[in-house]
């Protein structure tokens, strides 16, 4: 025994027809519109949802005995809006695909053209893409993030060298602002707050230099036989660091002079530098 209940709602020239099919067992039904107007079935990607052809719906009432179907039409509501024109055993669909329960009725999530989005936040992101802003869009992070510096949190980082601070201050002065938005600057660690203006690689190298210097000093102070060889290695490394620092210092001075020159030229041209 298959029964049909309905509900019609008319608004702004459109009638929305809700149909509730009830059956004692799983079965296949064909339902036809009886209203005097066109049937506007639900659509997926512009095509009528699975089960809808020529204003008629064919689907399977699942084992729980309940199937809901809906469509819209421009016709006025009437009683009954639709009728079950035939019923039969569940089985093969017209196109040969097997019928798989009630989901088919509401448009066929089984079909290849459905979006098939898993209904969880993670599933949505998996199916539709992560809306995160690309990293390259954020060349200079928001200043507010500077408070949660990971380096400061564990206290293991040595203080930044004076040179680094000086360099940062120079950059700020040049920018005329604290944030200094310069799109051409390479992306740096977003979470690193006020150290942002120095590329991460430079900061990491300077930290390593500091560590080697401190380790070399410690090893020299201990001075046992066992550590002598190690101390010699550290001393060699520290000496190499000093040569590298001297080279970088010269290079920085040279670049700074050149960019300061550019700045002066631009200012005299009457163009503010941002």
């Amino acid at each position, binding site marked *: 025994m298959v029964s049909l209940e309905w509900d019609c709602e008319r*608004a*702004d*020239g*459109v009638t*929305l027809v809700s149909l509730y099919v009830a059956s004692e067992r799983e079965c296949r039904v064909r339902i036809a519109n009886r209203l005097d107007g*066109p049937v*506007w*079935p*639900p*659509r*997926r*990607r*512009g095509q009528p949802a699975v089960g809808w052809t020529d204003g008629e719906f064919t689907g399977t009432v699942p084992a729980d005995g309940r199937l809901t179907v809906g*469509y*819209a039409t*421009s016709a006025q509501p009437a009683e009954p809006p639709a009728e079950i024109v035939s019923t039969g055993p569940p089985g093969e669909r017209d196109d040969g695909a097997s019928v798989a329960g009630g989901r088919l009725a509401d*448009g066929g*999530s089984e079909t290849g053209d*459905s*979006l*098939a*989005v898993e*209904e*969880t*936040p*993670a599933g*949505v*992101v998996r*199916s*539709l*893409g*992560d*809306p*995160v*802003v*690309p*990293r390259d*869009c*954020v060349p*200079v*992070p*928001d200043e507010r*993030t500077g408070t949660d510096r990971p380096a400061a949190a564990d206290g293991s980082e040595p203080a930044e060298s004076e040179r680094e601070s000086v360099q940062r201050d120079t950059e700020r002065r040049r920018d005329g602002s604290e944030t200094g938005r310069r799109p051409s600057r390479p992306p740096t660690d*977003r979470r690193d707050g006020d150290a942002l203006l120095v590329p991460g690689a430079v900061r990491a190298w300077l930290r390593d230099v500091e560590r080697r210097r401190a380790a070399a000093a410690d090893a020299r102070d201990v001075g046992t036989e066992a550590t002598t060889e190690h101390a010699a290695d550290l001393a060699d490394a520290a000496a190499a660091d000093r040569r590298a620092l001297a080279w970088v210092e010269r290079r920085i001075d040279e670049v700074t002079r050149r960019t300061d020159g550019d700045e002066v030229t631009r200012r005299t041209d009457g163009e503010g530098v941002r």
Partner: protein
Amino acid sequence: MILAVVGGKGGVGKSTVAYNLAAELDAVVVDADLSMADLPGCALDGGSDARRNSDSLAGGWSRGPDLHDVLAGRAAPVEAVRESGPVDILPCGRSLAGARACDPTALVAAVEAVAREYGGVVVDCPAGLCGDVGLGLLAADVCVLVTEPTPAALGDAVRARALARELDAGLAAIALNRSGPDAPTDLVAERLGGPVTVVPDSPRLADAQAAGRPVAAVAPDSEGARALRRLADRVATAVSF
């Protein structure tokens, strides 16, 4: 009750519809466009419209947590709702760095938390059909589709409709924006499968939005205000708001 305002295409008037629907339905509007927030979220206490405008244009933003903070775990969703403006709003930050620091998937729980506290929520979804739109629809019980009578807008609306159906956000109403009396409402109703409310191209509506106020408060008898009232009534009859 959570209502998502979607449309697919950008610039069809989603934010205007969302803001005014929230005003009509006495709901909180959530600006869920994480990277391009555009709701009048300044909601400055006091001050003239002119000041509000100039602050808005200058990027002036009243202090307090916003959706970026909520989605980054720095603020509770209800704390970030601002009640000082004409419409309760959960604004979104405007910095790309803030957007990048967010966990977008937290939007669903955040919106639900606001709905528990305030009752009604209107989620202003971004353009496109990326994950952020899907998350807004996932959180929503029903949706309103906003579109324009142009092929590009209608095509995108059809896709947004399909996504809404996939995520079980029933269609409460369709707003056919910037349309005249000869708008193809039958065609839109057929393609999208729902009743269509025409919203005319109304300068009063645009002015009100720019001033950060609902059109009903600025020009209650204007065509735009009447159309949005009809749309809100339509939504209210479709769902118990």
